């Protein structure tokens, strides 16, 4: 096979939210950027962008103002990655990121400086910061407790409109539900197939036809997130026009269409900006050249080519993302073998109760960095002058419980790229 050795200013390692954001910001700064990694985790994204909603998690305290929540968290836990990024940079990161997605056909909505709430597939509410436009009316409907019809489909497992309505019944009596056959499909339904089908006009019309008799007094109609895959904006607008009421999407169980939309938007949009995409390739080894730049050995199993990079951003995620590897007693960092701050011994990793309010200590384990987000070596000094870390691999946060995953990813990626561009 032909070797295609690559040379760049920055190699982004990881293809989750933090990696995608880092590539975007680097490209917008005019850096020659390459990105490697399996796009696994993006596929599971609900596509809402959290900033910060719960702190301290022990108390389960929910915040309306995410920046106040960040301040409260930092005051109590200075190790949180947000402590290394200024508020204006966080705002700028969100602005740049959602701006890019809007261009790629996935516009976002939200309220500046305010968290919002949407419905989840089990009927609970989720507090988040920015939501795709297709979910925005969920926020409005919930605030108004407006009469609302939730549609679900025969054969779509793990999504029961009845369940959502029942669960919300006490607070939101105006929720109704209806189960329909999805036009042209029976048996087990898969969301991506449904989304693809809805890109066709006849399917949209058939669906609208089936929904219309049930609308009644409903001010909004809700669907599981299947309204389009490649052109969600168009499908959404068309459905709304056909039904004549506001509509919104409720995320489905992963892997959902929401993740696929993000993945498609990233891959197309970033390629358009000149990204050297090395997806499906992994970093197998790394050497530092005389001028301080990295020479990475890349491939799926054996070396297929090399990448020479002046700087690198480690955005390889946690355990599921394979940035961290857990052996029976020890957690290791997978690419560079960086020291990982972690609770000592497996017995200290998890709580006895899965839903323990305090969260599991292992989820705060990760890479410790200096103020410029450069990972520290065993000696407490930056392991490499030109290596940065971003996203969930960073220590000191519990993104799942604090609802700060997307925010941490965007903010740290933004700060790391700024530092590289400035240097």
């Amino acid at each position, binding site marked *: 096979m032909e070797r295609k050795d690559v040379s760049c200013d920055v190699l982004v390692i990881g293809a989750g939210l933090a990696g995608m954001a880092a590539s975007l910001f680097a490209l917008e700064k005019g850096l020659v950027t390459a990105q490697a990694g399996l796009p696994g985790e993006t596929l599971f994204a609900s596509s809402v962008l959290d900033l910060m909603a719960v702190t301290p998690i022990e108390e389960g305290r929910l915040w309306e103002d995410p920046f106040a929540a960040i301040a409260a968290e930092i005051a109590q836990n200075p190790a949180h990655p947000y402590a290394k990024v200024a508020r204006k940079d966080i705002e700028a990161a969100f602005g740049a990121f959602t701006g890019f997605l809007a261009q790629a056909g996935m516009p976002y909505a939200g309220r500046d400086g305010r968290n919002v709430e949407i419905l989840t597939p089990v009927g609970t509410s989720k507090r988040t910061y920015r939501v795709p436009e297709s979910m925005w009316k969920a926020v409005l409907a919930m605030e108004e407790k407006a009469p609302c019809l939730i549609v679900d489909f025969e054969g779509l497992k793990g999504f029961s409109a009845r369940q959502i309505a029942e669960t919300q019944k006490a607070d939101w009596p105006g929720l109704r539900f209806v189960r329909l056959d999805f036009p042209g499909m029976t048996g087990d339904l898969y969301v991506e197939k449904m989304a693809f089908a809805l890109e066709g006009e006849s399917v949209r019309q058939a669906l609208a036809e089936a929904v219309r008799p049930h609308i009644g007094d409903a001010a909004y109609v809700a669907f599981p997130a299947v309204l389009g895959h490649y052109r969600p904006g168009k499908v959404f607008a068309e459905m709304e026009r056909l039904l004549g009421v506001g509509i919104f999407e409720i995320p489905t169980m992963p892997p959902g269409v929401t993740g696929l939309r993000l993945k498609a938007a990233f891959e197309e949009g970033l390629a358009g900006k000149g990204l050297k995409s090395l997806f499906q390739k992994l970093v197998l080894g790394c050497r530092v050249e005389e001028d301080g730049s990295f020479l990475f050995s890349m491939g799926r199993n054996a070396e297929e080519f090399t990448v020479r990079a002046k700087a690198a951003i480690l955005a390889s995620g946690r355990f599921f993302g394979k940035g961290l590897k857990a052996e029976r007693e020890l957690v290791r960092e997978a690419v560079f073998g960086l020291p990982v701050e972690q609770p000592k011994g497996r017995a200290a990793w*998890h709580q006895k109760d899965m*839903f323990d309010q305090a969260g599991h200590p292992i989820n705060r384990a990760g890479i410790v960095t200096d103020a410029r987000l450069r990972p520290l070596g065993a000696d407490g000094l930056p392991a490499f002058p030109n290596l940065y870390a971003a996203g969930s691999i960073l220590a000191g946060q519990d993104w799942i419980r604090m609802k700060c995953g997307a925010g941490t990813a965007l903010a740290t990626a933004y700060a790391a790229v700024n530092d590289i561009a400035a240097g």
Partner: protein
Amino acid sequence: MSRKPKRIETQALIIGAGVTGAGIARDLTLRGVSCVLAEKRDVNAGASGGNHGLLHSGARYVASDMEAATECREEGALLKRLAPHCVDDAGGLFVAVEGDDERYVADFPAMCARCGIEAAALEPARARELEPALSGRLIAAYKVPDASVDPFMLSLDNIADAGERGMVFLANARAAAFTVKDGRIVSTLLFDDETGEETEVVADQVINASGAWAGIVARLAGLDVDLVYSKGTLLVTQDRIADMVINRLRKATDADILVPGGTVSILGTTSVTVEDPEDCRPTIPEVDHIIEEGAAMVPVLETTRYIRAYAGVRPLFGKLASASSQDEDGGRGIGRGFALLDHARDGVVNFATITGGKLTTYRLMAEKAADLVCEKLGVAAPCLTRETPLPSHAGGKWTEPGLAPRTWLARRDPKDALLCECEMVSKGVVDELLASMPRHKSGPALLSLGLRSRIGKGPCQGGFCSLRVCAHLYDRQALYGDAGIEEIRAFLGGRWRGVSPILWGFPLMQAEFQEALHCGLMGLELHNHKSRKGGA
């Protein structure tokens, strides 16, 4: 909901729906005695559900307890004949590796012969041909007629068969108080810890078959039953590592048995004395210890993926304990025989306790207990369980691994979607189970379904199937209000007990993925304040 207790009259009340209680219920109904089976939680909630599922040939006890070994041989053979659908007659191996006690190895065949147990010597190379997973450091191997048995199917089928003869089964019915008058229990108060519902049972005879809880139940009648609680932890692998049962050929100790459980293997066990029968969580040091010991016999156990750990508390009867031996290693020295105590001697004439024993000898224990009850009732009918085959019943059959996927494939019904993908349990099976579950129960539906099927037993450990099944329960109008949240929390919480000790490598990835789903997206950790409303 009425607060006035419901009242049931019967000839015999059996407390505890483990395999012994279920066996007694069937034995009594076969003799024409009416009875009620009351269970604090659900079927096999104690040691009956927390064991290897090993149908002993008896070879394990040839050195320590000849009587137990002989009982196992006889009862094992009976069960293979009378309940073949519950048994995987896989055969067993006893193997010794370098460093094991060679004197024990040398004595083993003679000890087996003394108890009438067939033990055929195998060349180590031949043993490895049969079971490629065995260690290369084998020094001896014997083939014995071990087998594995599905304890859930066994109990459920016993209960179902008794139910067809009029036995009443009450789940979530804890024996809360006895009314004792003139040395007789005149009535028993059963209490549902979930709903607070009370039931009063008036029975001629009361049998305490509550296993490790026998001491607690006896104390309600002011009696003392001296039990030692021995916790045993086991590990489930993702795959079936070996076809046969593999035992370590040495004096019985920790982690020396690997038992096939349909599509998986079960490795265990430990023996740790605990103070409270409720204290049966598997711990991380136990898990690591089991893996280390097991890997000496079957090296792949060091690297294979585990699905979960679980534990059961064995009730060891103290009187037998003191009679038998010194207890230096957490009670393993105590005899595994059973004890049948007629409390007439202690001043309560219609009360008896049966405890201890083994899964393999459950039928014999039930026979002895039923004999005593019948003698007191003046019923002359003889025991029939020695000859009457145990029929297979719909309520029990779905615990068998592989049945659900094959049924699903054969049905090819587009509407019959899989709710549990790992073990391939479909809507149809869930609906069938919902219809067959006891009317009198009110406990969490997901947990009950999990007990009666393979739901939640696969690699996802409930992560996905809990959501799909819960949605389906709403669609079937088996759940109302926000009860689903607590259903999912309780189900996942239960699985977590088994998962948390094995969280490294792949299971940790799986757990992280699931936490992102259940907490990150659904926010279930924030919903603990909600109270249960409605329910099945």
